[in-house]
């Protein structure tokens, strides 16, 4: 039931109700707040009042000045609201009170009786206590104080209480009255406001609403001319306007309706779609002419006499009865929703046809009719079927196309990619759902992508402008496949009705071949060899520029011709016949042919002719590659000629010499007989000839040529002897020869000497001396034959100078390298040393990691420097091997220890196997041997992650004088491919450049190892399978020790570092190792670190001094022989009090390879403290350290 109410009453009524409610709540709340504030105010006031009052009260009571206290209490009574103030003694008896009535009465009889617990609490705690009485009518404060001291008491024990009670009730009452007063005024005011609101609403609002209602009622009753009067507030006026508008619109629409009905009738009749109207039973009520035609009836009435059901076959294609479905449809549409569905219909002649039927319900004047719109679908269905078939065919075609194809719709969405596309590019349709994704995946490079997109758009624009459906993209595109491979593609496409068809053609192999062809033809073009290509008949198709320049013919001259013009006629026709036979049978023909240039010159060429076959194996072309060897042949000819001439000349000269000799001999023999004859021959000799007195060296005679060589005249002859004409440097040699002559040891001699001419110039002579004393006994005279060889000497000297220059350049290079390494090493030692110190301090994990990285990097850098230095020494041939006695077996064992430690750290098994026949005492360079071994084994540790490393040492062949020892290091590491093995021992090469990044290293180690092994008359090699590990082996030849010698060091068991050794030294000690050999350094460092000591290494004396200047060390191990500055000099500087090392008295223990007894004294004299011999044995080192390290 609805309650009728009016706004003008209900709104003010609601407001009044709200005002009353609000005022009431505010009153309650304010009362509570005011009371709370009053209570806490009074409580605080009471407590602080007690704090102030009670000391005075206590003092007065203790003094017995009860009167003073009484005054105070009485004055308290004057305070407003102070209902009670009193003092109770320790027995709860009231001593003083504001009301005399309560005096000397027990507390229980006073109004404060109910507050006894409060008073007791205050007394017990001796703390002021306060509370509000349960009825919240009073504030009570109890304040304890001591009463006076009783006789016999040292401290007061009696505790009195000052109790005050302040009345709250009166104050609360007053406050409540005030609040009620204010609430009443507020209520009255809000009622009045509601009354005003009622009046206002009546005047401005509800009256006008009534007017509007009247107007609407009038219009409905047909008084449509009625206009609503404007009035009231703006909103109501607007509603009035809208109502007026509505009335006039409705009037206009009524007249339009009649017109519209006519229009619809015409539309109905002339519609090409069949329209049927039937009642709910399916009986047709109306239809249009199109329906009559569609169903094949002659007359509208014929059709109207049918029921709709009879216009359909008994069953629909889905197998259900038409009647049943019709009922369903009727009941579905009867709710007012129209339905469109496909329906099989039947014509009057019995033919079935599909149709689209739209059925809706019409409610025409209370009668529910079905309105059906029938569309004959037979044509459309047929077209659809055809289209579907054609499209399937098209897709199949695309799918089977041998080129990658892609169909895109006009929005760039992928419709289809064919199998070929997936195969070649790897992209499935999901990968490239649209053109944009194809762009971004196919062209990861932005520039390429932009180029491709521009090409695509340009092609599209062209298509549109030229009305051409062929999309031709001008360029080749480098399309990135899904697997990352880049293929070169030609792109063509077609713009079809509703999609783009894009075909890609992979021209990658073509382009590659083209590129190769281009390169090959470039090679042919610029080849210094002549190249000619002919067809199978021998007609020239191509010659290269080299051919042109040699023959003088141009390509244009000879193209299409046989190169007959070149024929020199030197070769018989059988020669050419053989040539053609060879190449005709498919073999390559090689030989030298003499041809004729255009200018008629003959020339020789070395020729290779090869047939070119087509894919069927038929020879189509011949390629001839020729070399002009005319010069070479000429030179060979000349050389042959020269050698013949030379031989001839030598023969002639030998004959001449023999003849001359013979002649001289004869002359000598005939001398007494025919002085004149001899003289003539003497003078004719092309050689300088002199006769000298053996004992004095005086020249008896000389021919003109001799005098010319010696720079004298015949007049000088008497004044000179053999000494005075000889260069002072050559005199002793000559004298020695002459003495042997005199002694009769030799019949003559030959020497080269310098003749000193009076003008100071020097002539080199080759002198042949023959004793002229034919008999036995002392020589009296000798004959000298002198040939001037100054020219030859000059060229020899020039050669020497050149050699010296080359050598000094090499030395300078070596020195530069050594200096550089030194200059770099010094600061590096500082870095490593300081980082070592830093690591000794307390660091957090991150700082430690940084410092350890600096330390490791520094050490790696030092190792690199040492490698480079070794390498430069080997290059310069400066590396000299030591030959000292040492114990091979213990050396191997010692070297294995640090490697085994490193391997164990990585979790790899490390074994060292020595065959029993490996000798102990050998002679060689232990340091360098150790370097090779450590390098190979160290590599094995470095490149092996799991498994084991085996070092195998065996004796290959012992001989009388030496041993050939074979070392093999097998690992289960990453292995090395066959190609990489070849490069392994080259300088600056690692097996795989990728591993150098991962494992570090200079790539010098193996090259150095190879050089060292070869210097030790050995060899080095590797056998490896990738993934299966490697075996590196090397051999060295070590001399046998001489029988009486013993090894310089006794051999030690392999397990020389027992655990207890490491406990000998307190950790934190720091030892400096000054040693130039890297491996010895490493071994010393390894032993020291194993002993728990901090150890750093430097490579020469200067670095050692520098290190001692910067870091606090406890001991120095000093090699004696080091480059730059040796151990003696370094010791001298350290001991010198003027140098700035930190400790001048630091213990220095020398390490030296010199096994001589005197070395110890020499070391001690130089200021060192002790001495251990190299190779350093851990045992000796431990002993020395025990002695010299501070305990």
């Amino acid at each position, binding site marked *: 039931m609805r309650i009728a109410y009016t706004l003008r009453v209900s709104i003010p009524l609601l407001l009044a109700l709200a005002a009353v409610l609000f005022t009431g709540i505010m009153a309650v709340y304010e009362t509570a707040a005011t009371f709370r504030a009053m209570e806490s105010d009074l409580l605080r006031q009471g407590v*602080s009042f007690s*704090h*102030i*009052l*009670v*000391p*005075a009260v206590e*003092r*007065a009571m*203790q*003094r017995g*000045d009860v009167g*003073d206290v009484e005054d105070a209490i009485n004055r308290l009574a004057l305070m407003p609201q102070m209902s009670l103030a009193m003092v109770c003694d320790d027995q709860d008896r009231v001593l003083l009170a504001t009301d005399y009535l309560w005096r000397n009465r027990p507390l229980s009889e006073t109004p404060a009786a109910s507050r006894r617990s409060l008073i007791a609490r205050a007394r*017990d*705690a*001796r*703390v*002021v206590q306060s509370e509000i009485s349960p009825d919240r009518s009073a504030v009570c404060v109890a304040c304890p104080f*001591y009463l*006076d*001291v009783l*006789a*016999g*008491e*040292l*401290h*007061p*024990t009696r505790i009195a209480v000052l109790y005050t009670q302040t009345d709250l009730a009166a104050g609360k009452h007053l406050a409540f009255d005030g609040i009620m007063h204010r609430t009443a005024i507020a209520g009255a005011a809000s009622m009045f406001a509601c009354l005003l609101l009622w009046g206002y609403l009546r005047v401005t609002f509800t009256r006008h609403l009534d007017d509007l209602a009247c107007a609407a009622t009038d219009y409905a009753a047909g008084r449509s001319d009625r206009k609503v009067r404007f009035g009231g507030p703006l909103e109501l006026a607007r509603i009035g306007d809208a109502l007026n508008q509505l009335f006039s619109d409705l009037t206009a629409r009524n007249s339009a309706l009649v017109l519209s009905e006519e229009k619809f009738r015409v539309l109905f009749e002339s519609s090409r779609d069949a329209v049927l109207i039937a009642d709910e039973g399916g009986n047709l009520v109306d239809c249009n002419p199109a329906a009559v035609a569609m169903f094949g009836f002659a007359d509208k009435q014929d059709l109207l006499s049918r029921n709709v059901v009879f216009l359909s076959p008994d069953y629909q294609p889905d197998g259900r009865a038409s009647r049943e479905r019709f009922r369903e449809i009727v009941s579905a549409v009867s709710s007012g929703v129209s339905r469109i569905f496909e329906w099989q219909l039947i014509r009057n002649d019995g033919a079935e046809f599909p149709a689209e039927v739209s059925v809706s319900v019409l409610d025409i004047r209370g009668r529910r009719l079905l309105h059906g719109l029938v569309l004959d679908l037979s044509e459309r269905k047929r077209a659809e079927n055809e289209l579907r078939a054609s499209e399937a065919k098209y897709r199949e075609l695309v799918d089977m196309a041998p080129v990658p194809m892609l169909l895109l719709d006009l929005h760039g969405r992928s419709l289809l990619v064919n199998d070929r596309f997936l195969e070649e590019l790897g992209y499935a349709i999901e990968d490239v759902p649209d053109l944009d994704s194809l762009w971004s995946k196919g062209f990861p490079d932005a520039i390429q992508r932009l180029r491709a997109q521009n090409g695509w758009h340009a092609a599209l624009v062209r298509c549109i402008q030229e009305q051409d459906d062929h999309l031709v993209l001008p360029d080749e595109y480098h399309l990135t496949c899904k697997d990352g491979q880049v293929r070169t593609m030609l792109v063509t496409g077609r713009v079809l009705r509703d999609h783009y068809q894009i075909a890609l053609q992979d021209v990658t192999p073509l382009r590659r071949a083209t590129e190769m062809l281009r390169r090959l033809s470039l090679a042919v073009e610029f080849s210094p060899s002549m190249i000619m290509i002919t067809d199978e008949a021998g007609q020239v198709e191509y010659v290269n520029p080299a051919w042109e320049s040699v023959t003088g013919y141009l390509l244009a001259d000879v193209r299409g011709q046989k190169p007959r013009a070149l024929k020199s006629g030197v070769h018989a026709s059988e020669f050419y016949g053989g040539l053609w036979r060879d190449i005709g049978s498919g073999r390559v023909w090689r030989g030298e042919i003499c041809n004729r240039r255009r200018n008629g010159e003959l020339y020789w060429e070395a020729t290779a002719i090869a047939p070119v076959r087509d894919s069927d194996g038929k020879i189509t072309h011949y390629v001839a590659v020729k070399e002009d060897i005319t010069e070479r042949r000429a030179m060979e000819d000349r050389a042959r000629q020269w050698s013949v001439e030379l031989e001839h000349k030598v023969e002639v000269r030998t004959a001449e010499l023999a003849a001359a000799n013979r002649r001289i001999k004869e002359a000598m023999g005939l001398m007494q007989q025919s002085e004149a004859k001899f003289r003539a021959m003497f003078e004719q000799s092309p050689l300088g000839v002199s006769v000298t007195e053996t004992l004095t060296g005086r020249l008896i005679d000389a021919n003109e040529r001799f005098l010319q060589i010696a720079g004298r005249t015949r007049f000088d002859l008497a004044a000179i002897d053999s000494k005075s004409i000889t260069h002072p440097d050559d005199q002793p040699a000559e004298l020695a020869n002459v003495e042997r002559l005199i002694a009769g040891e030799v019949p003559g001699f030959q020497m080269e000497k310098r003749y000193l001419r009076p003008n100071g110039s020097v002539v080199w002579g080759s002198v042949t001396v023959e004793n002229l004393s034919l008999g036995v006994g002392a020589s009296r005279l000798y004959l000298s034959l002198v040939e001037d060889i100054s020219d030859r000497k000059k060229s020899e000297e020039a050669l020497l100078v050149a050699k010296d220059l080359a050598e000094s350049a090499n030395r300078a290079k070596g020195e530069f390298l050594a200096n550089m390494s030194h200059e770099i090493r010094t600061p590096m030692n500082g870095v490593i040393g300081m980082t070592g110190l830093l690591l000794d301090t307390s660091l957090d994990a991150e700082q430690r990691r940084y410092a350890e990285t600096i330390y490791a990097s520094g050490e790696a850098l030092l190792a690199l420097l040492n490698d480079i230095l070794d390498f430069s020494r080997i290059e310069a041939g400066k590396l000299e091997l030591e030959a000292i006695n040492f114990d091979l077996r213990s050396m191997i064992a010692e070297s294995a220890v640090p490697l085994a430690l490193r391997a164990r750290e990585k979790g790899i098994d490390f074994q060292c196997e020595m065959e029993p026949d490996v000798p102990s005492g050998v002679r060689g360079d232990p340091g360098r041997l150790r370097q090779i071994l450590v390098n190979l084994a160290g590599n094995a540790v470095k490149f092996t992650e799991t498994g084991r490393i085996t070092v195998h040492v065996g004796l290959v062949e012992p001989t009388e004088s030496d041993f050939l020892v074979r070392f093999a290091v097998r690992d289960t590491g990453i292995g090395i491919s066959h190609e990489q093995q070849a490069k392994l021992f080259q300088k600056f090469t690692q097996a795989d450049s990728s591993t150098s990044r991962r494992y570090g290293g200079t790539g010098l180690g193996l090259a150095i190892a190879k050089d060292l092994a070869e210097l030790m008359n050995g060899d080095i090699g590797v056998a490896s399978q990738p993934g299966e590990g490697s075996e590196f082996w090397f051999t060295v030849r070590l001399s046998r020790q001489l029988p009486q010698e013993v090894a310089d060091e006794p051999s030690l068991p392999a397990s020389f570092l027992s655990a207890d050794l490491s406990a000998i030294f307190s950790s934190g000690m720091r030892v400096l190792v000054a040693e130039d050999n890297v491996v010895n350094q490493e071994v010393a460092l390894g032993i020291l670190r194993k002993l728990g000591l901090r150890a750093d290494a430097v490579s020469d004396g200067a670095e050692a001094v520098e290190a001692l200047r910067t870091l606090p060390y406890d001991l120095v191990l000093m090699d004696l022989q080091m480059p730059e500055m040796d151990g003696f000099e370094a010791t001298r500087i350290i001991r010198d009090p003027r140098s700035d090392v930190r400790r001048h008295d630091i213990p220095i223990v020398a390490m030296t390879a010199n096994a001589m007894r005197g070395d110890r004294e020499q070391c001690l004299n130089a200021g060192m403290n002790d001495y251990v011999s190299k190779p350093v044995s851990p045992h000796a080192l431990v002993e020395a350290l025990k002695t010299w390290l501070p305990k």
Partner: protein
Amino acid sequence: MPMQLSARWMLFAALSLAVSGCGRQEDRLRVGANVWPGYEPMFLARSLGYYDGHPIQLVGFSSAAEVIRAYRNGLIEVAALTADEVLLVAETQPLEHRIVLVCDASRGADVLLAKPEFETVAQLKGRRVGVETTALGAYMLARALERGGLAANDVTTVAVPLLKHVAAYKAGDVDAVVTFEPNRSRLLAEGARNLFDSSQIPGEIVDVMLTRRKLSESQNRTLGVFVSGWFRALDYLRENPKDAAARIAVRESVTPQQFLESLQGLDLTDRAANQRLLGSRPGNLGETLGHLSDVMLNQKILSRAMAQPVLDDRFIQATAP
């Protein structure tokens, strides 16, 4: 009129407490003390500006009894008290307090002074002895009587507030008075005879700073500032005794010279001694307190034995140089 004077003074003290509410209630650290040379270092520290910028408020009271009352009622956070007073406070709230600083040990500054005609304590039998109704007074008197072979009821105990000691003596209200500096100096100047003093019971009269166990974080921090300022002031006093005395004597109503002399009667406890006394090793303040507690129970000053206050040496440790 004495009563009015006292009341006015108390009013002033209460007002100053009220005014000090300017800082945040929970930050503020109010330290109460009566006039005693051993407590002067904190006033010296304030005078030297060591507490500037910190919410430390030093409140003077007329007697130790008032200090206890204010402390008990929560009007101050820290109370400067003698060890026996500490026990008295602890009697009603045994576990709520801790000692954070030992200020001094009296060594002659606490005295029983008598008219010149009395030569021994025993001669005081039947006479009137003025004493502040405090634990300290009671304790001193008890110990003095014990020495003189007298029982408590052999003398008439007269409760005399500290401020009235000199006046009561001069007026002849009492024959002897249990008092301490600075009254001691004044009375000796008047010719009083020293019958008994704290140098005869060394280590028993100890002055400490007592505070509640539960303070706010910021109050604890401020307490640290207070303690470190205390020791700085001690250092200053040692190094510049003249200037320090001049600053202090005004408060003590004696001449600087007298003040320095009065210091002779006590040991200002330094850091090291504080560490020992507040530490956990044997020989700490706990032993003294135990002894004291026995005496006080014996004299019925305490009605029951109770747990001792906690010794808290955190602040001493924090100020260790």
